[in-house]
């Protein structure tokens, strides 16, 4: 594989709008999302259920079924190894199939839903290699063993013959990662890959992802609801709320000094306990009041305004744009400077 220059854009998402046609009209799950991933960079999208983070990830490879009746607008530009640019929103399906796996691979929260229960795992990894790298078909079985070793599965020569049900959840996620890596993708999308796992296994998978990413120089798009995981892995973070990007910037800067009230509330709602000598401990439990809006009933103004302690009349009057603060730091808050 030709070495890639270490910087430069890999994927650019511009004004992405993904909706689902339902009997009650169009549900706009993602409404004007834009971000970019540089080569070998890790970007995290963080948000709660209904924020549109997973729909954004699924839109990149158009991974919706026919019954989803999804409508994707905007542009998703993939910069090729040769410098060519393809728009994944309009790319014909046969060519997109080529992008899936070979250029961009995906792992999901639930590995058992993605693995075929009736084939041994080695066979499933080998099949991925044969499909996307036919020139290596002859060595596919051996490559499968090596991939299992790469993802930290002990005794891979024996384990290739195992069926998915014989493996734990953590092992199955490692197998999914092996399948994703089979074609040496340039971007790995990981959609809540550790949410179903125990903390000790989560820590192992996070370390594995970081190591593999560094060793292979791939880009990583990490989707999560957990800001602490973002801090462990991502260079930059995109915070989503109700289908929109509300804040983006370098991870350390965003976590240390959020410039959107939602980001700050998300940081503060994590339970904390401060121990006091000779006094009652301080237990901090600060929920975000109210609920996120349903996609059918988003407000005309700032979508977070109904839950926001800083909201004023002007926030509710009309749409709030993303403000460019400095560098690549952005906030969709009129009052971002009131948060310093």
């Amino acid at each position, binding site marked *: 594989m030709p070495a890639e220059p270490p910087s430069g854009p890999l994927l650019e998402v511009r004004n992405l709008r993904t909706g689902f046609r339902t009997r009650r009209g169009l549900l706009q799950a993602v409404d004007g999302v834009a971000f970019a991933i540089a080569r070998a960079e890790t970007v995290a999208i963080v948000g*709660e259920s209904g924020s549109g983070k997973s729909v954004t990830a699924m839109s990149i490879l158009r991974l919706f079924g026919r019954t989803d009746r999804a409508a994707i607008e905007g542009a998703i530009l993939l910069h090729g190894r040769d410098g060519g640019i393809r728009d994944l929103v309009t790319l014909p399906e046969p060519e997109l199939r080529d992008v899936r796996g070979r250029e961009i691979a995906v792992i999901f929260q639930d590995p058992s839903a993605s693995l075929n229960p009736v084939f041994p795992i080695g066979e499933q990894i080998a099949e991925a290699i044969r499909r996307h790298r036919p020139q290596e078909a002859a060595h596919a079985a051996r490559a499968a063993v090596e991939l299992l070793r790469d993802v930290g599965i002990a005794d891979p020569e024996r384990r290739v013959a195992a069926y998915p049900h014989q493996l734990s959840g*953590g092992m199955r996620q490692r197998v999914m990662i092996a399948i994703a890596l089979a074609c040496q993708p340039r971007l790995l999308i990981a959609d809540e890959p550790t949410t179903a796992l125990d903390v*000790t296994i989560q820590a192992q998978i996070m370390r594995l992802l970081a190591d593999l990413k560094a060793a292979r120089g791939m880009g990583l798009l990490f989707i999560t*609801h957990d800001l602490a995981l973002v*801090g462990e892995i991502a260079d930059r973070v995109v915070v989503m709320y109700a289908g929109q990007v509300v804040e983006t910037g370098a991870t350390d800067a965003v976590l240390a000094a959020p410039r959107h009230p939602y980001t700050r509330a998300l940081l503060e709602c994590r339970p904390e*306990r401060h121990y006091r000598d000779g006094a009652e401990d301080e237990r901090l439990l600060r929920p*975000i009041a109210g609920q996120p809006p349903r996609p059918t009933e988003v407000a005309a103004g700032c979508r977070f305004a109904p839950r926001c302690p800083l909201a004023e009349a002007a926030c509710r009057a009309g749409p709030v744009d993303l403000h460019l603060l400095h560098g690549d730091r952005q906030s969709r808050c009129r009052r971002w400077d009131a948060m310093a």
Partner: protein
Amino acid sequence: MTALIEVAGLAKHFPLPRRGFGPRGAVRAVDGVSFRVAPGEVLGLVGESGSGKSTVGRLALRLLDPTAGRVRFDGQDITTASLRALRPLRRSMQMVFQDPYASLNPRRSVGEAIGEVLRLHGIGTRSERRDRAGALLAKVGLSAADLGRMPREFSGGQRQRIAIARALAVEPRFLVADEPVSALDVSVQAGILALLRGLQAELSLAMLFISHDLSVVEVMADRVMVLYLGRVMEVGPTRTMFTAPRHPYTAGLLAAAPRLDRGAAPAVVLRDEIPSPADPPSGCVFRTRCPFALADCAATVPEPRTVGPDHQMACIRDDVTF
């Protein structure tokens, strides 16, 4: 303080299907667990999946019959009490489950769901029960106007509030909360935890709070017990457990938990995964993942020993600190 709930030497072995003519195996879900919870105290129970924490919760309420050991409630041995004898006690022992979508009957209004519990325990007249259900809803942050609404009209967090109202309707003295916020978004979790904590203090409830999430247990519990493969690894006051753990497994769990300030966590890396409870390792069940295991660890099951005020752990090593 005297214990409200006290279990001693509790074990639960689930038999496995017979294979051939060999001896019949068993999943040793819980093995030799003892603890006490005082009135008004919250005991946190942590461990990975397969550690037996949910089974312990069910055994403590006698929703499961133990294979061995005793369960005492308010001084009374209920280990072998008949269902009829248990019935009046059931009022004093309630449970809140993880999934608020599964624990409420979708075809019953909220008022009916709460009223039914009161009716089963023969409390009040129909209209008194209705008033009481309305008052309970107000107490958990909803309103009496919600009585006629159906569960599907509520969000996950609101449903969990309804489940809490229902559990508290009969004025229990002991509550088992099994992963009560794990199915909820983080922004909603804190509200449910604050509610549970407030009600627990106000009603002086004894509570067994089960969670895989260490930060949630840290904020809720007065004492914390760590389970691994059905055995107690360490138990102690919350502050001690989180700031000065003594058992390698506790330290490993703390190290693995994602946190925003990485500086404070111990640096113990746990390898591999929890073994099958059908075939636990000999000696210390944790030794196969323990970075500090010695040859001796395979030979004998470590007895819990006191290492500080109210603080016990089951590890033979004295020479490691985290």
